[in-house]
């Protein structure tokens, strides 16, 4: 695949993440912080997010298993999770966090559980799409290097 086509593929993949409502402006902020001194900054931050948030997902899962539900604890965990999701521009995940917190405030356990199931799905989908996106970027950079040689 020639260089221009590679770049188009990267651009198209990137745009579709925004068009699908998965990412917001904060992701663009992260991209603006990537430079020669920090060439993998965006991928590093995303990796850090998935590493750190795994513990929170587990905590929330365990808290949702308890009876009666401790909505204050659930809200606190989700507040942290939402903060992290916001940091990487994970728009859809962030909005599900907000919805979850509304259910917490309303004391609606079923709402919390359903929302969290959906949140976990979208969290996993985003991870997969970003992993693929970063792989395509990596290959396009390799292709650029080969082209220069």
């Amino acid at each position, binding site marked *: 695949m020639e260089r221009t086509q590679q770049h188009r593929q990267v651009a198209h993949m990137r745009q579709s993440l925004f068009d699908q409502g998965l990412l917001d402006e904060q992701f663009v*902020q992260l991209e603006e912080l990537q430079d020669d001194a920090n060439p993998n900054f965006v991928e*590093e931050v995303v990796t850090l*997010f998935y590493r750190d948030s795994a513990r929170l997902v587990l905590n929330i899962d365990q808290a949702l298993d308890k009876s009666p539900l401790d909505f204050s604890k659930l809200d606190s965990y989700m507040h942290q999770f939402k903060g992290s999701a916001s*940091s990487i521009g994970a728009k859809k995940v962030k909005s599900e966090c907000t919805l979850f917190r509304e259910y917490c405030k309303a004391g609606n356990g079923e709402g919390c559980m359903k929302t969290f199931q959906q949140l976990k799905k979208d969290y996993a989908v985003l991870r997969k799409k970003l992993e693929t996106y970063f792989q395509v970027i990596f290959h396009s950079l390799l292709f650029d290097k080969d082209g220069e040689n």
Partner: protein
Amino acid sequence: MGFGKHSSSSKISALVVDDDTIIQKIHKALLTKLGLEVNVVANGKEVLDLYRSGTSFDLIFMDMEMPIMDGLEATKELRAMGVQSIIMGVTSRDLDLEKEAFMASGLNDCYTKPLTISKIGSLLQKLKKKN
């Protein structure tokens, strides 16, 4: 351009105070890109330890909620010690009451997380004009 009286380099010195490793990484990168000299600590107690050891910073970006010592307590202590550094609160809390309480602890201003290039750029412009 140093704003703190202890600053020996030409760069503004900044301290990021946050227990969230993602925020630490993002805010450090952002402030470094804007030309600041940046250090990072994870809670309010670590800030106090630094100041008590004689280290100081021109700007402190203080998270509100942290383990061991939170941003409100740390800010109150710093001001009680006579610290004149500019302290900017950084919080993901939405409620005005919570932000007001944070401001009342001695902040110069308060931002919603995460910081962005435009937010900090505006702050730096204001500081330049003031000095």
